[in-house]
């Protein structure tokens, strides 16, 4: 069973907490969290959104990447209290109405993964990249995901997956993917 923050043994002294209001994948949550709780632990252990992974836990690998107000950040290097009043999107928020996001479809169809550990973070970085640059070159894709490490694939199929999504989103009729 996952450990909730309240169960973590606290150092001596008062447990320092704060109440936050945060919108996650469109749903508003009101939670009391320890000041020191990282955003990734809040998402995984409190909200049980375990799609966001903890990889290196040192802000290098990008497995924990989520969008805060649309901007990709490493949720292992951000406190939950810092997103008070903000909007967070995780990999669970990508599909809509049972339909995969074009980026998810790209990673599936182009086999943009092997073990899958980096995939949620990789997809969130890809979504943000395509939002700011809908038609990236291969070089721009590689630079755009350079904060996300994959130790299986060598990135070839990841780049193809993002190109697939770029094409799909461009060709989609107005009003949705």
């Amino acid at each position, binding site marked *: 069973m996952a450990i909730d923050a309240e169960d973590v043994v606290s150092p001596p002294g008062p447990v320092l907490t704060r109440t936050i209001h945060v919108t996650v994948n469109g749903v508003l949550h009101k939670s009391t969290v320890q000041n020191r709780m*990282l955003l990734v632990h809040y998402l995984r252990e409190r909200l049980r959104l375990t799609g966001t992974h903890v990889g290196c836990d040192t802000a290098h690998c990008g497995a924990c*990447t989520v969008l805060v107000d649309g901007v990709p950040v490493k949720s292992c290097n951000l*406190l939950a209290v810092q997103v008070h009043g903000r909007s967070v999107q995780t990999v669970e928020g990508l599909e809509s109405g049972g339909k995969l996001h074009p980026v998810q479809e790209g990673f599936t169809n182009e086999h943009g993964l092997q073990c899958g550990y980096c995939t949620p973070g990789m997809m969130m970085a890809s979504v943000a990249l395509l939002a700011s640059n809908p038609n990236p070159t291969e070089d721009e894709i590689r630079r755009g995901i350079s904060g996300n490490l994959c130790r299986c694939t060598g990135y070839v199929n990841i780049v193809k997956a993002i190109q697939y999504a770029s094409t799909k989103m461009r060709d989609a009729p107005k009003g949705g993917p």
Partner: protein
Amino acid sequence: MYPPNFEYYAPTTLQEAIGLLDQHQGEAKVLAGGQSLLGMMKLRLAQPAALIDINRIPDLAYIREDSSTLAIGALTRTAELGRSDVIRSRYPILSDAGAEIADPTVRNWGTVGGNVSHGDPGNDLPACMMALGAEYRAEGPKGPRSIPARQFYQDSFVTALQPNEVLTEVRIPRASPGTGSAYSKMERKVGDFATAAVAVRLVVGAGGVVERAGIGLTNVGPTAIYASAASEFLAGKTGTDADLKRVGELAAEASRPFPDNRGPVEFKREMVRVWTRRTVARAIARAKGGR
């Protein structure tokens, strides 16, 4: 990995933030982007009793140029350095650096003020600010003061900033006609600190003669280093092969690298020599209208 416990404050005015810092007497740290600070707290290299989150204070994120100064607000995310037209066209040293700090995701949250005030010799912006002749605006209980970047860094993680002061703005002299600048970073992989990196800003006048220059070095000493002898040498030179060779030697002499898994001392000093030569050449080319 949880950081140790701390009190958390999210003031909405600068005065409130300064009051909280003053009240905690050196036991509090300012939280801006936190991209270095939280990592150090997770590893217990830093254990502040309180964090003062300045992200709720309005008007600390901006890039503004007037007739004399380029002003960058402390909360400006480092990603903005690569997006600003003013910086890309007139201060390319900063867009060069903005493309090399950590990785794109970290740059979305890490700030200019944090990068210059953290005091890690591996931070990329301090050497740039030394080369540019920048000044930092610090505000404390006694009001604001200005600290030249070249006098700000005292030792690794030790700066001229007092524990009850907030660094609010970086002020850079406006680029005059004929200015060229560049930052080159040798790194093993994206996200690594520099093996060696060189920041150059110079002004080229009539006849292609360099009027004045500033050269800063990253991660080849306990702090960022202002290579004063190399900077002064360039004045009056045109950037011949012999000039470039000599300025590289002088910069290498100013470096004080330490051996680590990025290489031994001799290698790093050699890299300073080579990368200074190249970066000065690039800055001169840019001063003459090149890229």
